[in-house]
């Protein structure tokens, strides 16, 4: 149990990300790639994700404004988006991406729109949670890794 109150709060926030299903095991993989030489790796990847995926979200939004829907294109965009989301361990976002793709495959336009709305909500929620988490992490300062084997 963390003695430092900030670290304790950080640990609680981190646990809640998992408990609420926002992130999965892949997030742990990212954490394991963080070390003294790359102390902000997780935040860097997540930041890069939000920057990169904003482009895809915009593409999908624009594609959904063109009727009839080009399901093949929509599916291709979502394939990309799902891949990135999966790589950072964004569990709920990834799940919603899968649903969207299923709607594309069955030509379900209504389903696509609903799923996309839900996806954007999850995406925004997670961004807020990550924002708070990394801000606190920066306050907490670098973890002492003297005891960690290299």
């Amino acid at each position, binding site marked *: 149990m963390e003695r430092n109150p900030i670290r304790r709060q950080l640990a609680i926030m981190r646990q809640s990300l998992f408990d609420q299903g926002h992130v999965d095991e892949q997030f742990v*993989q990212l954490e394991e*790639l963080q070390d003294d030489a790359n102390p902000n790796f997780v935040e860097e990847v997540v930041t890069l994700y939000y920057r990169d995926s904003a482009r895809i979200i915009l593409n999908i939004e624009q594609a959904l404004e063109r009727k009839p829907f080009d399901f093949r294109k929509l599916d291709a965009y979502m394939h990309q988006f799902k891949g990135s989301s999966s*790589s950072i361990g964004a569990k709920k976002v990834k799940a919603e991406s899968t649903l969207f793709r299923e709607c594309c495959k069955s030509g379900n336009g209504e389903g696509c729109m609903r799923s996309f709305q839900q996806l954007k909500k999850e995406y925004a929620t997670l961004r807020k949670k990550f924002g708070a988490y990394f801000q606190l992490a920066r306050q907490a300062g670098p973890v002492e890794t003297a005891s960690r084997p290299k």
Partner: protein
Amino acid sequence: MGNMATQTRFHVLAVDDSLIDRKLIERLLKTSSYQVTAVDSGSKALEFLGLNGENEDEERNSSVESVSAADEDHQVGVNLIITDYCMPGMTGYDLLRKIKQSSSFKDIPVVIMSSENIPSRINRCLEDGAEEFFLKPVKLSDVNKLRPHLMKGITTKNEMQSNTNKRKGSEEIQSPDRTRPRYNELEVV
């Protein structure tokens, strides 16, 4: 052989059109102490290797190819290629085929990554020469599987070196397979 492994770091060429996945694979590989070059397409990968992909006819360019193949110092020095399957333009599979068709680079181990678990796709890649097929997201445990393929490359290089030396020494070196048919022909006569 031991010297080579400790003095020179293995150089991995990573190919992926996704910015996130490039960052990830780069970190995974660097964590394992590999030198990494990451590119965003199959054509950039071929460009990096010095294969511009248009020269399918190896014969026509044999003078150029044989110089780069024989002179190891001038080769770009890639020990393994790890590539995403789904990429616009040239897929990872197309890249695999081009590598395996190249006389200079066919012995470089190629590993394919994909977010989709499609058995027919996996089998096709493995049958056409891929050493491994990793499902994305790629983990550290996957990257740990690369080492034996890289170590094999050192042995092959050493063997190739000694074969080259033998060839220089004598014209008569034939593989055992070549001598067998000749023997059979004699018997028939």
